[in-house]
């Protein structure tokens, strides 16, 4: 349509021009005008100079003018290009013949707090060549045979420009030393084939702390885009280009800017076809910083082994769905994370050199238990009875449940009316319970009373939730690991908005909701790390330090710390207000009794430890699933240092299974293995 229009217009222009010319030319069609009076004497039609010399003079002047105009136009244009814009073209010319090629820098290593390398680099030999090697088909064919890759693949790798057209293109990476030796021995046959020493991530302890360490991968398109959008505000920021290996999870991701080295730059001169003709200046690559984590290899191992051990116990006790869980060990005096385990786990080395899509989808599938999920910080569970320490503190502080008040547990609590009766986990009933024995026996009716009384308390109907939030539940701990979950402390407003498509009477906050969260059931969600922080607060009289995994960046010389976490090594997260020391003492007494007096079977595992341990079990109930086993503890009781929290998905009762994980970790810390053979399976929940 467009083209036809142009033709039409051009045709009309042509027609107009022809018609115009014809009319114009008609006026001059006669050479002579005939004068009828004076006969046919020829007369000039116009008064222009008639003699040859005069007419030619004008024409030559025109021709000279034309020559002058032409030369002036050329000179003017040359002046503007060569004198005015010379610098612009000069820079284009320089740009034309130089290219900057990046050379990769090794990533920093990741060490535990004692300097044991958890992630290192191993040398990897790569066979590389410049692009023009592809022209030598015989050589490429020979090379592909030696390397054992298809000819087409080798050719494609040589011609692939993603590393930069003038960079050496990787033909094969991680090549066997014997193959490299063969290539180097026959250097004459492999002219132009180069061997590059590179580094790949190596994990000396296999899957150990995989969730904490994370993994590396090629920078994604989204990351590159985000970088582009962010702009160059920070001159120190590392700019990535396609193909760079960056941290994609865990510490590798969180401390990418420290671990990532600074790429070297090699300026090369090229000819018009892009072949490298010479090398100019070069800047050596600088390796990334080594960083030390707060992890202690021994404790980390104990967390993982203890978790696996507890799961094994759960499975042996008939909970065949057990298999996932998390265990975290904190230093409550500064927030150092000494160990953090999550099951199921994965092998970070599968990500080295790129992960296949099969493996990737398996790692993310529900069937394999989403092993990439770090359950210690991202797993959200109902807290179960471990939260009772906070419910007790709330009851005491708001005058809901005094230390002298008692509740008679019959196994079935009818405080909200017969119709809304709730069972205690011990259906035979605990008898008369006060707050301390309620905690010790994890007697639910005591806390049902607290929950109900808060609900009907006009002054502080949500005092319970306030207490939970005061201790850091419902908000992220601020741990320096990516994708931490914040959990949930449900209240009336939350229920109103969360179930917004329900009728008003059903989404109204009721006494049942309150009694549920008082024992850590219902809609409350916490992460294992949050609970560890709560118990650290209990141990420290209300002070919680921000849990962190970063200990320090190691100085360039390999000695000493260039930078400690937060400058000083610790950061206070919050100080929970304690109403009175007596309240805290009562609660501590309760969690002492949990371990040492309530159940001889549980006590037998802890009595041989050189320190006193305070702790609380928990057993979360979810419909259609086996119970979730919880246990949180800290030690030594008189001078708290270590806090351990563990959760086992569908792992049964907390005191029977999760407690064994806690015991194993404490056993590793104090070098006193669990010698009790009592598998009486403590029933306390």
């Amino acid at each position, binding site marked *: 349509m467009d*083209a036809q229009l142009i033709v039409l217009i051009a045709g009309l*222009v042509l027609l107009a021009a022809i018609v115009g010319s014809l009319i114009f030319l008609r006026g*001059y069609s006669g050479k002579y005008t005939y004068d009828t009076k004076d006969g046919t004497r020829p007369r000039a039609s116009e008064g222009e100079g008639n003699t040859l010399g005069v007419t*030619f003079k004008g024409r030559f002047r025109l*021709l000279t003018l034309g020559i002058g105009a032409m030369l002036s136009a*050329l000179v003017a244009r*040359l002046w503007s290009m*060569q004198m005015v814009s010379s610098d612009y073209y000069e820079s284009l010319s320089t740009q034309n013949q130089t290219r900057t090629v990046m050379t990769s820098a090794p990533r920093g290593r990741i060490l535990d707090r004692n300097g044991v390398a958890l992630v290192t680099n191993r040398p990897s030999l790569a066979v590389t060549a410049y692009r023009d090697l592809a022209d030598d088909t015989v050589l490429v064919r020979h090379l592909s045979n030696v390397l054992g890759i298809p000819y087409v693949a080798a050719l494609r790798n040589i011609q692939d420009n993603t590393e930069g057209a003038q960079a050496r293109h990787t033909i094969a990476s991680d090549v066997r030393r014997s193959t490299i030796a063969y290539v180097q021995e026959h250097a004459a046959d492999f002219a132009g084939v180069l061997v590059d020493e590179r580094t790949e991530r190596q994990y000396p302890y296999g899957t150990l702390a995989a969730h904490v360490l994370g993994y590396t991968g090629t920078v994604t398109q989204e990351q590159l885009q985000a970088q582009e959008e962010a702009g160059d505000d920070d001159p120190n920021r590392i700019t990535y280009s396609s193909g760079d290996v960056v941290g994609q999870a865990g510490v590798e991701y969180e401390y990418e800017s420290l671990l990532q080295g600074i790429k070297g730059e090699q300026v090369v001169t090229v000819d018009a076809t892009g072949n490298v003709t010479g090398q100019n200046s070069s800047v050596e690559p600088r390796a990334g910083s080594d960083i030390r984590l707060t992890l202690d290899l021994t404790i980390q191992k104990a967390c993982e082994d203890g978790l696996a051990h507890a799961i094994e116990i759960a499975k042996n006790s008939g909970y065949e769905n057990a298999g996932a869980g998390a265990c975290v060990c904190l230093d409550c005096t500064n927030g150092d994370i000494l160990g953090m385990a999550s099951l199921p786990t994965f092998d970070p080395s599968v990500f080295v050199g790129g992960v296949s899509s099969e493996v990737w989808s398996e790692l993310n599938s529900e069937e394999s238990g989403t092993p990439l999920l770090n359950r210690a910080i991202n797993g959200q569970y109902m807290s179960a009875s471990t939260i009772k320490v906070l419910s007790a503190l709330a009851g005491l502080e708001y005058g809901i449940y005094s230390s002298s008040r008692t509740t008679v547990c019959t196994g079935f609590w009818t405080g909200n009316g017969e119709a809304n009766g709730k069972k205690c986990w011990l259906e035979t009933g605990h008898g008369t319970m006060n707050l301390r024995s309620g905690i010790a026996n994890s007697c639910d009716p005591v806390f049902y009373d607290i929950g109900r009384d808060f609900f009907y308390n006009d002054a502080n109907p949500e005092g319970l939730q306030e207490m939970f939030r005061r201790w850091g539940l419902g908000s992220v701990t601020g741990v320096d690991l990516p994708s931490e979950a914040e959990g949930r402390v449900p209240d009336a407003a939350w229920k109103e908005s969360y179930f917004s498509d329900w009728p008003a009477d059903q989404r109204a906050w009721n006494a049942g909701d309150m009694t549920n969260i008082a024992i850590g059931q219902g809609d409350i969600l916490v992460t294992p790390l949050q609970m560890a922080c709560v118990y650290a607060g209990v141990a420290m009289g209300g002070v919680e330090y921000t849990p962190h995994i970063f200990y320090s960046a190691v100085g360039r010389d390999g000695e000493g710390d260039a930078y400690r976490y937060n400058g000083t090594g610790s950061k206070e997260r919050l100080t929970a207000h304690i109403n009175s020391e007596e309240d805290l003492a009562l609660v501590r007494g309760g969690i002492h009794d949990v371990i040492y007096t309530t159940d001889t079977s549980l006590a037998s595992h802890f009595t041989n430890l050189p320190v006193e341990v305070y702790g609380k079990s928990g057993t979360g109930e979810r419909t259609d699933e086996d119970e979730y086993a919880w246990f949180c503890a800290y030690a030594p009781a008189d001078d708290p240092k270590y806090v351990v929290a563990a959760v086992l998905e569908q792992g049964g009762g907390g005191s029977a299974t999760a407690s064994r994980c806690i015991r194993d970790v404490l056993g590793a810390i104090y070098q006193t293995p669990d010698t009790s053979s009592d598998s009486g399976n403590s029933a306390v929940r």
Partner: protein
Amino acid sequence: MSQASQSRTKNTLNRVNRSRSAAQGGWRSSVHMGVLAAWVCLMAFGALVVWSASLTIADASISRHLLGIGLGVACAIVIWRSDLRELANISTALLVIDIVCIFLPYVPGLSYNAKGMTGWIRFPLIGLTFQPVEIVKLITVFFMSSLGAQYNGRIDTVRDYLKLCGMLAIPFVCIIIQGDLGSSLVVFFAGAVVIMMSGARKEWVLSTIAVIIGLVSLILATDSIIDGMLGDSASLIKQYQMNRLLVFMDPTSSDSDEAYNLLQSLIAVGSGGFFGKGIGNATQSGSGFLPEAHTDFVFALLSETFGFAGALLLLVLFGILMLSTVRVAIKSDNLFLRLVCVGIVGMWMFQIFENIGMCIGLMPITGIPLPFISFGSSSMIAQCCAIGIVQSIWRCRTKSA
């Protein structure tokens, strides 16, 4: 006789001798010094440029270039010694020779294909290659001049004017058919200058220009449609020619070879600065960024090496050459030779403006060599012949007895 009067007599004698020898022909009367000087300087400059190109470009052989200069000088001398006035009367023969030369590359024994281009012949036995179209330019100038001279400096009827135009169209169309748009434009421009100088009215010329513009726009517009119906090879405008035109309109519009060539040429010229990068330091042309740096884009190489100063020197030399030739034409009293002279000036004007203009983005890209500078013997010999013709005209400027 006194000493003084003796000396005076001797001086007078010398002066008379000098003026007599000048009047009787001699060096100055038979050779126009301006044309000669410009010609020699241009060839020397060209040889220097080609030599500098030969340092990095394998194809640019300085010895072959010097051979071309030698042959060209020989041809020029032969033509200079001959009297060209007789050619005025054999216009039909000139046309026949012209057309034969144009289609010479199609003669089976002679045709020679280089780099996918046609338009070359190879002399059997000696193995020399030659582009006849370079000579065709000069023959056409003679042909048109012989026709134009018949009107004695004034074309009075449109019929005569149109007849002249039609005659010019014959070689023009023949060269287009042969496939060399650039050369056909040179022939067209030179012929048009001859017609104008023959005494065509300004009004006729202007209306002809209007018709041509309309015709060209029609051809350009229909090109894509003809391409679609008959294929690219059948249409008047080839795809690469269309690309060149589009790139000329907007250099950044495409990433075709033409756009690349133009950009590299602009960079080469622009990065030269005032004094240039010096011989052997021309990175644009030396590292192969600039294509055809020793032939069609030789001006870019020259500008990069010698800068604005060198380019200006070149333009001054061309200016002297053309203005001197116009001077020769003015001095000549033979109308035919006058027209030949201005035809040659027209040829140079177009070739210089087009070639330099394309290097600096003023004109679309075409494959026309820069007279006396570009590497290539055909062009060099033909241009030297043109100098020989001009000098011959100068030698024969007065009516022979």
